[in-house]
């Protein structure tokens, strides 16, 4: 065995990854070679010193976060099952109660009712019941979607959070809780793509005054050039004159991106 060959096996030697025959060869070489022996001593020293390299331990908070993640995940699994069940139930109901789901038939029934009050009075609860049931069912679905979305917004994965945001566009109406969650995401989500899609979703809800106000409030807190520019676009689209003050405040930031500065100036000019 040559010195170079011997040296090549040092890592394997300290790792106890040498076959017995190889190990024997190395030992035989070392016995007759002071150079390699010295080299091995210095190698072992380095190998030993590596043990002193600090590996920190996670904070106690990690376990808390893990538990929260697990609970959230379990909830979302449960909700998925519930949603599947609800969809099934709904479809099944639709199969044998076709008429009331059909708005035309429903309207027709109302018109007919005007002419045939006696008949209407004879079977009032049934029709009322079905309408009521439908309302309850659709409210349940909306509520479920909302809960699911709120849970998903807490998800550690950015793509899951994006999915949650896209859910909100499916909601026929957003309640205060959803709006609040979206505005919080807009300001605080660590992922810029999530924040951008949240902005997109919120701009579709501009009919709600609290959404508009929230968007305006959010302007000065945005640090990312992408976000600053996107929110300026939204303000222009919404023709939101009240945003001018916040936009001007943004201009006062010294480190503002050059392109963004230009865009905000244009936006302000078009708004006033």
């Amino acid at each position, binding site marked *: 065995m040559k010195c170079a060959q011997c040296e*090549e096996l*040092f*890592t*394997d030697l300290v*790792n106890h*990854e040498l076959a017995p025959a190889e190990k024997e060869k190395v030992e035989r070489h070392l016995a007759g070679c002071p150079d390699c022996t010295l080299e091995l001593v210095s*190698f072992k020293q*380095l*190998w030993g*010193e*590596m*043990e*002193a*390299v*600090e*590996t*920190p*331990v*996670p*904070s106690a*908070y*990690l*376990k808390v*976060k*893990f*538990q929260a*993640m*697990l609970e959230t*995940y*379990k909830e979302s*699994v449960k909700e998925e099952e519930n949603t599947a069940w609800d969809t099934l139930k709904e479809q099944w109901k639709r199969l044998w109660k076709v008429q009331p789901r059909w708005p035309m038939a429903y309207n027709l029934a109302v018109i007919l009712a005007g002419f045939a009050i006696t008949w209407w009075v004879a079977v009032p609860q049934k029709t009322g019941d079905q309408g009521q049931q439908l309302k309850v069912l659709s409210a349940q679905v909306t509520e479920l979607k909302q809960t699911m979305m709120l849970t998903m917004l807490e*998800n*550690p*994965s*950015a793509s899951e959070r994006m999915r949650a945001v896209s859910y909100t566009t499916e909601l026929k109406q957003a309640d205060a809780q959803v709006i609040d969650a979206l505005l919080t995401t807009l300001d605080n989500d660590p*992922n810029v793509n999530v924040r951008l899609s949240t902005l997109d979703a919120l701009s579709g809800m501009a009919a709600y005054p609290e959404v508009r106000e929230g968007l305006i409030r959010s302007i000065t807190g945005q640090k990312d050039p992408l976000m600053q520019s996107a929110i300026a676009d939204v303000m222009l689209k919404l023709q939101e004159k009240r945003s001018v003050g916040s936009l001007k405040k943004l201009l006062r930031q010294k480190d503002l991106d050059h392109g963004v500065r230009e865009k905000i100036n244009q936006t302000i000019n078009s708004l006033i």
Partner: protein
Amino acid sequence: MNTLTDNSIMLKVKAGDLDKIGLLFERYNRPLYGFLFHMTYQRETSEDMVQQVFYKMLKYRHTFTGSGEVKHWMYSIARNVLKDQVRRKKLAMSGESVEVVASHVAAGLTPEEHLEKKQAKLALQKAMARLSEDYREVLTLNKFQELKYHEIADILGASETAIRTRVHRAMQELKSIYVRMEQ
């Protein structure tokens, strides 16, 4: 007391007993954190990534077949999470993070430690930080995570011979960086 193997725990999780993943968390959150820390030198990011590893294990639990080791599966998930993270945040994984490393090492020291030892340790950690990611990865897995070559090969999807060579080269590289720093 607790004699359940990692694999049998994971198979229970797969079967729907999601709480059981807590046992795997207890066993592996520290080693995974250690691995991710040595690859990024960022404490908070490493914690987030550990969290993501366990989330992905839950999400993809049905893909666990039980034919391989859970531990290896976890490390490969951790590597993917790391890759995503680097792509997303353009995390600086070497070179300029030396300063960060220095501050972390300083934070981890006890007052009674000797200055000399302190400096040697710091120098070695700096040298580690200057290694290429591939080398740092195998050394972390081999030395700090105490994994055998065949295990690393399994995690990285490489041959055992390739890992043997890589670990050896990583040590050579580390030594030469270290020597250059001492001069």
